[in-house]
């Protein structure tokens, strides 16, 4: 399906981002998770549900969680739990059609006025439908920001993108 939505976050420097597991696993697969996180140190939140989903990755779960926890100790990112009283109903509504990690990611961003980084179309559509909408970007959006802000060359970004093995030809890093 052609995605009719366009990212609404230009950079993690613009506003802190809550990370979903699709983006975490893409960067991990390309051996670039720590690198991308450290480009915008202190601007990331990872919901506990996303950490759980990463941990459940049969082959790489331990390594991903260890990378996340290491970056947390160095204050590159922080883990975030939902506020049950204020955020519970939004989470419950979203989780009817989205996974636990995506629902937590969007809920936390919505209530705390952050942006999100996630790749799944129904999750991006959910961001648009909330009032006010939740600003979002996707994996390729982060690479484009890194290029635009001079952290990565275009070739470096393309190499990371290629290593992710994303087959969708409609998605690419320019």
């Amino acid at each position: 399906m052609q995605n009719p939505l366009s990212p609404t976050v230009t950079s993690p420097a613009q506003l802190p981002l809550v990370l979903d597991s699709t983006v975490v696993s893409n960067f991990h697969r390309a051996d670039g998770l720590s690198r991308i996180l450290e480009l915008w140190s202190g601007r990331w939140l990872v919901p506990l549900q996303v950490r759980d989903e990463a941990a459940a990755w049969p082959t790489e779960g331990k390594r991903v969680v260890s990378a996340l926890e290491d970056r947390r100790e160095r204050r590159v990112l922080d883990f975030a739990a939902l506020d049950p009283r204020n955020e519970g109903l939004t989470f419950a509504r979203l989780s009817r059609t989205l996974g636990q990690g995506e629902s937590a990611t969007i809920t936390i961003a919505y209530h705390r006025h952050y942006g999100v980084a996630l790749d799944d179309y129904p999750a991006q559509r959910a961001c648009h439908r909330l009032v006010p909408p939740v600003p979002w970007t996707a994996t390729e959006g982060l690479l484009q920001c890194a290029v635009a802000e001079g952290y990565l060359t275009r070739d470096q970004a393309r190499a990371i993108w290629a290593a992710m093995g994303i087959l969708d030809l409609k998605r690419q890093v320019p």
Partner: protein
Amino acid sequence: MTLDDVTIGARLQIARKDIGLTQGEVGKQMELATSTVSEIEAGKRSVTGGELHQFARLYHRPLAFFFEHEPDESPGFGYLFREADLSILDRSSIVLFHQLVRDYTQIEEVVEAAPLPLPPDYSRFGFRTEQDAETLAEMERGRLGLGDAPVKDLMNLLDAIVGIKAFLVPVDHQSWSGIVARDKGGRPCVAVNAKEESYRRNFALAHEYGHVLAHLAKEGLPAARIDRAINLAQRSADESFANAFASAFLMPRPAILGQLDRVLGANSGQFTDADLAHLAMQFGVSGQALSARLVSLRKLPRHVHDEYGNRRSFSDLAKALGYELEDWSLKPTLPARFRYLALKAFEESRISLTKLAELLRVNSDELRRRLRSAGGTWAEAGTTG
């Protein structure tokens, strides 16, 4: 809009009781004082997000369970959780069954699926005897257009045609063999132990089917029942009835008699253990169940049936005859209609890939790989378009 501590606390208490833990046990596992658990449940102390995350894992419930304003507790599952005393060692299997039923209902709502017909209710017909069970089985086979053929996939027949939601759920310690309960919409749901051999699961499903038709709606009886172990020497009238129904439904009299005549004709009147195993596998039942059926049809003396159980291992014999017996499973098995609706919701972009993975109880990365290798519209599974 916000939730209050009393609502969340009440949901936490329900979830704790469902899984069969005391406040003390929970406190110990979560390194909280028992009094703190008690205060949280009473709404006197707010639960933190981190604690709720831990509670959800401990109680085997998704986080959203604790945020429901109007709990969808059905009388059937309410009864199950109240009555499933501590002798049911594996209560988490009942929680899993409940959660599967809730997920099934949710995905039906998401795709706005046409409702299935409800199974007929024969509870007022006064069916009681084994002969009545035989009659009921023939009526059901006739209604479903099954003729005398063996039933190849009972779980999906029940689920998609009869209108009984059916699951295979792994149960530890053989805590139970079969459960039937009405969901919040009044639809009967059954689960049988996935850790039994396929032929036992078949019989258990048919047994619970008998309960749904004849007993579930009986006045004065609860909207759920748990069968600890289904054995062929059941004493209670309802259990004997359900066994007789299962036996007659899975092994229709004309088909069994016809097959028996053929075997006897070909073997000069001899009927060996191998013949019994071969015939049993054709009908998807155990040798024990088939020999009991032959007793009820007056084709086998009871003492031969009694001896049979002690003489040979049915599964070993079936394997020796070249039958591949489906292994028991550590994972729940979902009915085809549930999986179809979930996949349809994903294809129509109504749900995300990780939601699909949660519903199907598979790892999302593994599911993404499987969908990609299936190609076509799924080649870009889980990505933006």
